[in-house]
């Protein structure tokens, strides 16, 4: 189990680094998909199969496809790759890198502190998720639902357009 975790974690890290360093946007997105898949494997190992599969269904299966969709539509060619190459200069990434190294050091320090309670691995199945969603976090669910509803209505409104051009034989009389 431990070994699988370390392998998956390594895959996650490597693929995430690849996401940042790829010049071709589609390749970068594919590495992001791999990173999400390996994250879901980690969720599985931590005893949360429901979250793992939702990660695949929603993030890898739907959202990333939409990203690729958009990038395909933009039809980014070689110029973008060159542009990306120019952007990836040390001047650009040195600042964020230093900041994240500080965060990383803090994380190490926190891990290093000996824990009193040993973490017991308990499976978080769909029932537990459902109960926690609809008991303590009910208001959060309701708010999210309202937000999503607003989003759907907004999308429907933006997507709706009146048919302006009829066929010339089917043109209806202007009602005044």
């Amino acid at each position, binding site marked *: 189990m431990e070994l699988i975790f370390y392998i998956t974690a390594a895959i996650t890290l490597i693929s995430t680094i690849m996401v940042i360093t790829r010049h071709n946007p589609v390749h970068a997105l594919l590495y992001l998909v791999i990173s999400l898949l390996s994250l879901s494997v980690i969720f599985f190992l931590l005893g949360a199969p429901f979250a793992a599969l939702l990660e695949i269904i929603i993030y890898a299966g*739907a959202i990333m496809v939409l990203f690729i969709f958009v990038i395909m539509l933009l039809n980014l060619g070689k110029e973008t790759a060159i542009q990306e190459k120019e952007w990836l200069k040390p001047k650009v990434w040195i600042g964020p890198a230093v900041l994240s190294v500080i965060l990383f050091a803090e994380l190490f320090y926190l891990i290093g502190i000996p824990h009193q309670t040993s973490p017991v691995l308990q499976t978080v199945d769909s029932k537990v998720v459902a109960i926690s969603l609809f008991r303590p976090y009910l208001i959060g669910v309701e708010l999210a639902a309202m937000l999503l509803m607003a989003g759907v209505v907004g999308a429907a409104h933006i997507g709706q357009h009146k048919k302006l051009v009829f066929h010339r034989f089917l043109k209806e009389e202007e009602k005044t």
Partner: protein
Amino acid sequence: MMNTTLQYILMIVMVLFVLTTIAAWLIWLERRMLAVWQNRSGPNRAGPFGLFIVVADTIKLFFKEDWIPPFADKTIFVIAPAIVAATVLMSFVVIPFAPGILIADLDIGLLFFLAMSSLGVYSIVLGGWASNNKYSLLGALRGASQMISYEVFMGLSLMGVVMLSGSFRLSDIVLAQKDCWFIVTQPVAFVVFLIAGIAETHRLPFDIPEAESELVAGFHSEYSGMKFGMFFIGEYLGVTLISAMLVTLFFGGWLGPAFLPPLVWFILKTFVFILFFILLRASLPRPRYDQLMSYGWKILLPVALLNLLITGGIVLMMTK
């Protein structure tokens, strides 16, 4: 311990072997049945009833030139056909063929099936994009939007079944149908799942990503040889998968009168649905792309949601 591991591997190999063989013979079956429904006789030369046409087809596919266009994105072009076969085969992991004959009885089996079918989109999108060809790209765009949207209705229609059986585990769902198949209690969900399943496997009435009268061959225009064969096998495996899921979820899986063994019941029911898929191909014309999308979002989604609401209400009343 050793023995069970060996059994496990044997099971996987067996299922894999049977499935790929079935997918191959389905090519023959489809051509033959299409001919039957069009007053033709179909392939009948090679071997008895033309059965060996599959062998000839396979040999032909293997010996064709495996052409990668110079303008294609090579790695992605090669990976894409593997994804479709891999994801569909992965979905078969959770399907209970008969008591004892299944690979992994995951307690979130249904979600696993949905996840794998949602990953199947990548083969179309990447195959179409990597071909670097406008028809392929159009096919990929259509395929992506079609599959993402129909996944929604597919998942929603299944939730009624999950409510009635109270579990995501597929063997539990089958056992919950001991008294009454879910086709009786969930007819609306069945229809929605059937339509979404056809769209998900991009089978013929909804083969918009590869509409050959508009898009050459859609997302696999540039593929040849065994890479095309993978797409082909993936499609037939998808048909088998959706048929098997329909049987598992709505037609009582392996359950049936006792004069036949459970596995035979399962295979018989699946076979009927495969034939139904071929019949659909023989009879229905392809809808336009926007018709398909508006049909999905304006009819199937509200119907699935209403079904979910009513089922939830009834389940609540029954438990009270």
